[in-house]
């Protein structure tokens, strides 16, 4: 018998969207100095959701000035008072979680199941966690007298818009810094809704400023001489450019960049859970995840069996309307990203790998790419070396643990890795040798505010989350 799930859409009315939004500077919303705007669209329908102010250099100047003016007062507050603001924000996020989840899903294209069950709970948890640090900084083990740096410029990507905001803003405020945040061009709406939450929380004007815009806005912010600290999450190429532009300035910099993680499956793995881990590793959030397990390294002796199970499982993934509560795979965030995924996938064909696509119908409007895997991939293929940032898995095989480690580490990146085996000593042996900031053993893509996250090598530097996440915002 066929059990077809009827449409189960989350109500979009939960999240009202205004026809236009301004920049959030010094506690108020305002138009861009030069009056420019840009449109933000829903990736699943191509519908224009709103027009948003396009911040330019003058707006970045104004925001940095507001943050600078707010810094003395904010940093002088007793830690316990700063903590209470952050606790308020955490609670307001929880209160408005459904609205924020719907808004995120509309603007980003990711399934409501993920925004509801992953993004929003983590956002609230992150503020709640760092709130508690605000009055305990001397106990963080970073030195007896940790001091805030000043004004932080923070530039975040489109893949987890509100969660990346939380990862940036929560530790910065807890440590007494003020911030100018630049959300991604394609996903500005939840950051602006967060600005409203800051007002509801009574946060002093200028402590958080949000300047929306495109890459030029981000570049103007990153290079602004009025900053003490720059934090960036995004592509390695942009991260490199920021590092170059800050050379010799003495401004502090943390970077959370790309990855090409190996997800390594041994023949004694718990296979059904490994299949789930592989699916979660690369198809979670349409593969728009810097720590995605985009290279599956499977032991040759179990490769056929694992791939059979994996393909069968991919056949059950539900792609479509991101607002439908039963959707597993949403839309690709933008036409540019879709073009990049297509282009890199095409190199997989051209270089001789074998493409397999999950059986599913793609909607006729919006930006979509079906869950795809390539077999017969070698380390030399572009799809094994370059970050695709989409739902495309490259499958490679190995014979011995040493070979698995060598292949896993054979990349300039080093953000994350996965290991699947029921043998405890092997897990520890692997975890010790993998050059990656996060190693998930017998699980994948788990996140928690207490758990430091960040990469080795060209995946960037600095850690976000946990006690370690305080250090980039403190002078110790």
């Amino acid at each position: 018998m066929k059990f077809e799930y009827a449409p189960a859409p989350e109500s979009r009315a939960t999240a009202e969207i205004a026809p236009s939004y301004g920049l959030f500077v010094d506690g108020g919303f305002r138009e861009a100095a030069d009056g420019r705007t840009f449109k933000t669209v829903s990736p699943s329908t191509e519908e224009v959701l709103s027009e948003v102010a396009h911040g330019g250099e003058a707006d970045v100047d104004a925001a940095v000035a507001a943050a600078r003016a707010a810094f003395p007062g904010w940093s002088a507050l007793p830690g316990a008072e700063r903590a209470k603001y952050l606790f308020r924000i955490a609670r307001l996020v929880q209160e408005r979680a459904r609205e924020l989840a719907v808004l995120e899903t509309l603007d980003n294209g990711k399934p409501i199941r993920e925004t509801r069950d992953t993004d929003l709970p983590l956002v609230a948890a992150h503020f709640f966690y760092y709130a508690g640090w605000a009055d305990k900084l001397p106990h963080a083990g970073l030195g007896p007298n940790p001091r805030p740096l000043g004004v932080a410029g923070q530039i975040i990507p489109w893949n987890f818009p509100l969660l990346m905001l939380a990862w940036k803003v929560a530790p910065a405020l807890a440590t007494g810094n003020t911030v100018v945040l630049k959300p991604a061009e394609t996903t500005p709406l939840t950051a602006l809704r967060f600005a409203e939450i800051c007002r509801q929380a009574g946060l002093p004007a200028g402590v958080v400023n949000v300047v929306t815009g495109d890459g030029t806005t981000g570049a103007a912010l990153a290079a602004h001489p009025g900053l003490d600290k720059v934090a960036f999450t995004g592509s390695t190429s942009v991260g490199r450019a920021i590092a170059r532009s800050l050379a010799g300035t003495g401004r502090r910099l943390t970077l959370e960049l790309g990855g090409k993680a190996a997800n390594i499956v041994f023949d004694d793995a718990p296979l059904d859970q490994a299949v789930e881990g592989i699916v979660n590793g690369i198809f979670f959030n349409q593969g728009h995840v810097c720590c995605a397990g985009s290279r599956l390294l499977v032991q040759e002796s179990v490769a056929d069996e694992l791939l059979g199970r994996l393909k069968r499982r991919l056949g059950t993934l539900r792609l479509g309307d991101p607002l439908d509560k039963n959707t597993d795979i949403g839309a690709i965030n933008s036409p540019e990203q879709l073009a990049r995924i297509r282009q890199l996938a095409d190199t997989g064909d051209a270089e001789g790998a074998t493409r397999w696509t999950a059986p599913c119908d793609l909607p006729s409007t919006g930006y979509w790419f079906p869950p795809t895997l390539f077999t017969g991939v070698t380390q030399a293929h572009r799809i094994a070396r370059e970050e695709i940032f989409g739902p495309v898995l490259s499958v490679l095989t190995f014979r011995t643990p040493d070979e698995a480690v060598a292949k896993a580490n054979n990349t300039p990146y080093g953000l994350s890795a996965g290991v699947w085996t029921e043998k405890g000593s092997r897990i520890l042996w692997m975890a010790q040798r993998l050059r990656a900031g996060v190693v998930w053993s017998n699980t994948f893509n788990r996140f928690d505010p207490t758990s430091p996250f960040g990469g080795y090598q060209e995946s960037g530097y600095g850690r976000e989350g946990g006690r370690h996440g305080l250090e980039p915002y403190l002078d110790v």
Partner: protein
Amino acid sequence: MPSPAPALAPADVADVTATDSALRRFLHGLPGVDAVGLEGRAATLATRSIKTTAKAFAIDLAISMIDLTTLEGADTPGKVRSLCAKGVSPDPTDRTVPSVAAICVYSDLAGVAAEAVRGTGVQVASVATAFPAGRAARSVKLADTAEAVAAGATEIDMVIDRGAFLAGRYLEVFDEIRAVREACGDAHLKVILENGELATYDNIRRASWLAMLAGAHFIKTSTGKVAVNATPANTLLMLEAVRDFRDATGRQVGVKPAGGIRTAKDALRYLVLVNETAGDDWLAPAWFRFGASSLLNDLLMQRQKLTTGVYSGPDYVTVD
């Protein structure tokens, strides 16, 4: 869907069950189960939202999959007869409601049930083999089975010897299931693993395979008489086992979660597990059952809500 060629031909099955050590090697060679990952998957599937037409379909399907059960020391012929009436015609005001799959009773009442459901298509399931503990001589268990079948039971729900299993005497458990299957004659055999006493998911996977190799038509989670009965996670695991067993041998085995499934919402979640793990082929009373008693009335109330648009109450379904 890719289905690998059968990896276990009948001759292979004979090999792996030839000796205790061969059987142990086989069962311990099955892939391990990561508890957190398994429970996580079950929890994710529990978030599926089943609405409108899908809900109506699933409610009727769930009703048709119920083994409507009474397993009390106080059971009487009268109680069993009224349960049979309820199972055959769950909602006297609405003839479009399907009958349940079976009535499940103790073996001494199998004859009463068989009489009451004659000609309706509803099966009579009898627990046997010294249910629920299973602590009796094998001759007693086989006699229990044979008498239930003779009295008209068309399905037998046996319990495995958990003591022997936990002591590692797998072949003894295997032989006993075989013997009971033989005693069943034409009746279908459901093998109760009693997951709560097996304690680990690895054990549940091994016991599932052991029962299937021994000829079970169904594998069943639990007796309903211990602290932990059917859970979404252990049922998901058993669904993976029957799926893999069919891939390996070509033979399809059913799954029956029992104990603790009381609401329509629970039942629909189990059907989602079936749908997204074993697949369409198991979405029929021949391959999936719910061992339950109060579940039926909640399904009926939800069904009335869908039909009428207003919430139903316990006085609008029959109590038996």
